[in-house]
């Protein structure tokens, strides 16, 4: 039983590491900010998610597993918000979310 758990952990973490690698290659090689942000979201969502999934069987208790999921949720939240903020800055928009204006107000 523990052999199966270890195999699940190794496979999931390896897959997660692959997505981290893909995200990093995207960060280094993509031409501009918006595409790089897009690459980074793969590392945050899929990469970290697979690593957490792989660590869940090793957590040993329900509390440990819930803490791991909380870590993933917080990283997702922070990544999503910061990506939004950076993307707004990068594309030069000052969007007013009520009236839907785009572009700088002159």
């Amino acid at each position, binding site marked *: 039983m523990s052999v199966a758990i270890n195999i699940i952990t190794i496979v999931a973490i390896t897959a997660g590491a692959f997505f981290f690698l893909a995200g990093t290659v995207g960060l280094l090689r993509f031409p501009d900010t918006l595409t790089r942000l897009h690459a980074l979201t793969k590392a945050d969502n899929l990469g970290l998610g697979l690593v957490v999934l792989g660590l869940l069987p090793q957590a040993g208790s329900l509390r440990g597993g819930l803490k791991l999921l909380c870590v993933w949720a917080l990283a997702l939240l922070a990544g999503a*918000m910061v990506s939004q*903020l950076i993307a*707004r800055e990068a594309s030069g928009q000052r*969007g007013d979310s*009520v009236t839907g204006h785009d572009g700088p107000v002159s």
Partner: protein
Amino acid sequence: MTVALALEMALAAVVLGVATWTIAARETFAAVVGFVTYGLMLALIWVRLDAVDVALVEAAIGGGLGGVLLLGAAARLRVTETLAATARPGATVRVGAALLSATVAAALATGVILLPDPAPTLAPAAAANATATGLGNPVTNVLMAFRAMDTMLEKVVLLLALVGVWSLAPDRLWGGYPGPRHHADPLGTLAFLARLLPPVGIVVGIYVFWTGKDHPGGAFQGGTILAAMWLLVMMAGIADAPQVSSRRLRIVLIAGPGIFLAVGLAGLAIGSAFLAYPVAYAKPLILGIEIAMTLTIAATLGLLVAGAPERSARQ
């Protein structure tokens, strides 16, 4: 050469690579980003060195708050970049500095390699006296009981640094509001994050402080998380920084070192020595001091990042 050792050498190599990039980067902003990355990877090294409390402190203060502080300064000083870039020192200074740095690094490395074997350690002493406080985390024991004097003086140092920062205000702004007034679109992303994250962050911060009794954590780590949540709210413009002359703020700031000092003097009067805890009351006393410490650390670190007063009082 085990797999773990190979991975640790890879980690050390990556950390040194990021450190080199921090020194060599052209733009200050890029160097500061490199420094934040360095701080976070350093936290991984601390975990490998079996110092999880230190890893938490390094990630929170070194990477997190230090990063915010330096990024803000780099953004405000961006206009000085072009002027400063022309003032690079000559080749002799650079070669001399490189030789000096290499010598210092070599001396430290020799010291590390020649460390005595078997290593002298105070761990048995710490373990033997752990029953005096009833706490399970040895680092908390050392911080709050065995070397409590250091921790108390460190709180005073934090307070002095804050007084130093405040004293940099021009005369007409004395006692005013620290830093510029931040504005963010109240329906935008930053304001949303500043409403969503702080409740979670406060719970996490209090948890990290509370769990420091028996597991890695403690007042510094928890207080830093609370300070970060406060800074997030200030930076989104949802709440303004308090006036520096506010009495309630100043009471919160001196609560930590004040209670620590009071307990210490009580130990002198009632017990056997300064900062001696009576064994029956050791744990509640330590927890009481830590609660005050956490609040003070949160307020002090947040205000240190917010900076000197830049808006006059009662605006």
